[in-house]
């Protein structure tokens, strides 16, 4: 029966090519617009570290006070003094401080021009906390942190440039003229959004080239290559006075496995801030936050407004296309009232009429979906018009998007056909047959 209805559907579609084309185009445009904008939205709003996003937290401490903080919210990073205090307290199972550093590498010794290398100064816990994959070697140890060791983990890309992709563990890299021993080479790793550094990035930058010990970077008085935000009167002129200033530039992360751990750490933060108040360093009550990965992404508005607005507009567009389809299907089905009456008079049940017309609508949806797929493919390759390149390249037409496009097109069309098909099934045979 299904294939017979399908056949009937095809015949009816061919019978009225203009109306059919109109419906198919409307569905195709609607579903394509939605899928294109959804592919971008999906890419930017995803969970960058699904299996650990609920156990990774970034602590915030209000070191600026109610008059200078972000409308009641603490600054988005830590100053040096608070960062050191959290680091030494070591109140979490794993923790890391981090900030961006920019350096240069000489790929071919003195002959070549230097290359820029962007990386992070981090603690050794960074690698297990964020599940960084390794091609060769591993991260460094806690002892290396304490010893302020001159070690470095480089990315697969930098390893390719410097060592032709060979196992470079134990070899030496010269960064800004200082030698570092390579202890590991990461696999291709660039979580998007880059949840762990939303203070200095928008979340969609190119992968980092290297990672070095935070303690070592401080020893070398390495200025942050990322953002720096200060309040009040600025008076620092030396590295030491800069460290004592209220400027925030260090992002902390901790790993807390259970709700009890989270509660304990939250208490620790509150107590720390309260202690600072008692000591006279803060002239305000304790104001701290402990956000996990998804809360942090949300708070930092990682999803660009463009992505959300365009998705909303596209969905609205799709709804209009569906309303349009309901109207056209209604016209198409009721125009065949005579035919329906004959079938009903010959013994077809309402249910059969209903099924037949829903299947016919399904074929329209399928055709719209296929055409929509073509539009989606064109659109996805053209999202560079709307989004900056680092976001545009995230939008991809993969198997799931193809499936979703077809599924949405068919489901939506069948849904739109419910009312017209119901009307068709309720055509009064006697009425129609009489007047003919």
């Amino acid at each position, binding site marked *: 029966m299904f294939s017979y209805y399908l056949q009937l559907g095809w015949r009816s579609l061919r019978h009225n090519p203009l*109306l059919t084309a*109109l419906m198919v*185009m*409307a569905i195709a*445009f609607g579903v394509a*617009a939605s899928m294109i904008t959804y592919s971008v939205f999906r890419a930017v709003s995803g969970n960058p570290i699904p299996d650990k996003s609920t156990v990774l937290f970034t602590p915030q401490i209000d070191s600026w006070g109610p*008059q200078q903080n972000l409308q009641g919210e603490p600054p988005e990073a830590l100053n040096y003094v608070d960062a050191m205090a959290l680091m030494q307290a070591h109140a979490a199972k794993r923790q890391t401080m981090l900030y961006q550093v*920019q350096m*240069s590498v*000489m790929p071919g010794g003195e002959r070549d*021009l*230097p290359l*820029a290398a962007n990386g992070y100064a981090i603690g050794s816990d960074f690698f297990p906390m964020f599940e960084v994959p390794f091609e060769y070697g591993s991260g460094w140890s806690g002892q290396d942190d304490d010893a302020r060791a001159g070690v470095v983990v480089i990315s697969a890309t930098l390893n390719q440039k410097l060592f032709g992709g060979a196992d470079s563990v134990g070899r030496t890299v010269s960064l*800004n*003229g*200082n030698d570092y021993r390579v202890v590991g080479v990461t696999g291709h790793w660039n979580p998007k959004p880059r949840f762990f550094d939303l203070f200095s990035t928008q979340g969609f930058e190119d992968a980092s080239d290297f990672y070095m010990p935070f303690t070592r970077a401080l020893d*070398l008085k390495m*200025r942050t290559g990322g953002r*720096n935000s*200060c*309040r*009040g*009167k*600025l*008076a*620092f*002129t*030396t*590295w030491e006075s800069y460290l004592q200033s209220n*400027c925030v530039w260090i992002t902390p992360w901790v790993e807390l496995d259970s709700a009890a751990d989270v509660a304990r750490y939250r208490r620790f933060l509150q107590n720390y801030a309260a202690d600072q108040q008692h000591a006279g360093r803060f002239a305000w009550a304790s104001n701290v936050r402990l956000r996990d990965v998804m809360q942090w992404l949300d708070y930092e508005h990682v999803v*660009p*407004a*463009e992505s*959300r*607005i*365009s998705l909303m*507009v*596209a969905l*609205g*567009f799709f709804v*209009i*296309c569906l*309303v*349009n389809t*309901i*109207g*056209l299907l*209604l*016209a*198409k089905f*009721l*125009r065949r009232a005579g035919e329906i009456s004959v079938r009903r008079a010959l013994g077809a049940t309402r249910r059969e009429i209903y099924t037949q017309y829903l299947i016919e609508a399904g074929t329209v949806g399928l055709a719209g979906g296929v055409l929509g797929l073509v539009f989606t493919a064109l659109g996805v390759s053209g999202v560079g*018009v*709307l*989004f*900056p390149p680092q976001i545009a390249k995230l939008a991809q037409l993969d198997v799931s998007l193809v499936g979703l496009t077809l599924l949405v097109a068919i489901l939506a069309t069948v849904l739109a056909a419910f*009312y017209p098909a119901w*009307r068709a099934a309720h055509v009064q045979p006697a009425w129609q047959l009489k*007047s*003919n």
Partner: protein
Amino acid sequence: MSLQIKPILVALRRHKAGTVLIALQIALTLAIVCNALFIIHQRLSNLSQASGVDEANVFVIRNQWAVDKTTPQVDAQVKADLLALRQLPSVRDAAPASGYPLQGGGWDNYVTMTPDQAEPTTDAAVYTGDEHLLDTLGSRLVAGRNFRADEVVPQGAQETIIPPVVIVSKALADRLFPDGSALGKSFYAMGATPSTIIGIVDVLHRQGTDQGSNIYAGQVLIWPLRAADARGLFYIVRAKPGQLAAAMREAPKALYAQNRKRIIAPRDGIQDYAQVRHSAFDSDRGMAILMGVICVVLLAITAAGIVGLTSFWVGQRRKQIGVRRALGATRGDILSYFLTENLLIGVGGVAVGSLLALSINLWMVSEFAMARISMLYVATGVIVLLLLGQGAVLAPAMRAARVSPVEATRSV
């Protein structure tokens, strides 16, 4: 015309579903088209923001140092670099800078009138440069004077220096001293000592182009500081008229001839202002294009939908039309019947649509900090959609008008 409204309403009651569908489609289309037009207008006005820079001739070099150096060492190199750049035959002038208009991101300092003021008066984008900066940017002084060479001091990485003199944009001058007396007055910008306004420039855009920094749009201060940051700096270069390409070719060669221990990224280390502007307003342009496309397709689909449904109605009512014609109705009567019917549905649709448009806008105001929509857009949308409806209904209505009175007698 007016005498026909009552029978039309009666007839529409018999076609509730079709009527509601057309009205709904018109309403939704109006709501989206109004807001899309509004977004287009906003984004296009961003695109035309003035940078205050002589964009045809200026380019920017992002220069990173490859080895660690002390501030005096960096400063000596910067001075030598600038001398080399200014001596190029194709170059008019060059200046060191910590940032430039439309760069993206930014450096801004809060501004207060007294050193102990708790609540800042306002916020301002901060640029640094030497006595060549204004000429290099092509910025015009509207009052006061430029920096003197002896006022410019080097600034190392994260070293706070509050110079005693400052040049401000007219917007900042007017914001701080609305009576126009800014020249010679002083203010505080996150320092313990004041800076005195010695010059006022016409227009200068802040570094960022984002919504967040829009609150201090146009408010700019320039300090006489020569960037001597061990990490790097920007060289802003103004070519002689028509020699931009030559200058962009020669400048990096001149710098590498000075010292090879530097990084000028091959991909985006040198950008002319066309590129700077392009990447600054990329998403604005994209948004305007997307909204434009959506508007056009949406209007086309709505029009096609009206044609489709009206054609169906005409087909359904051929007999009634025939009867009316036989009873003496003219072709004009039939035509105006369908036009009026569509107008009635359209008016209902746009009434709902206007409310919907306003509520979508209110939602976007709260969600995306967007501006309130002007009623002009809603009014334009209403007129466009009513005209579109009348246009779409014209062809089926004319077909209806051609129905011959004979049809009344057929197949009864």
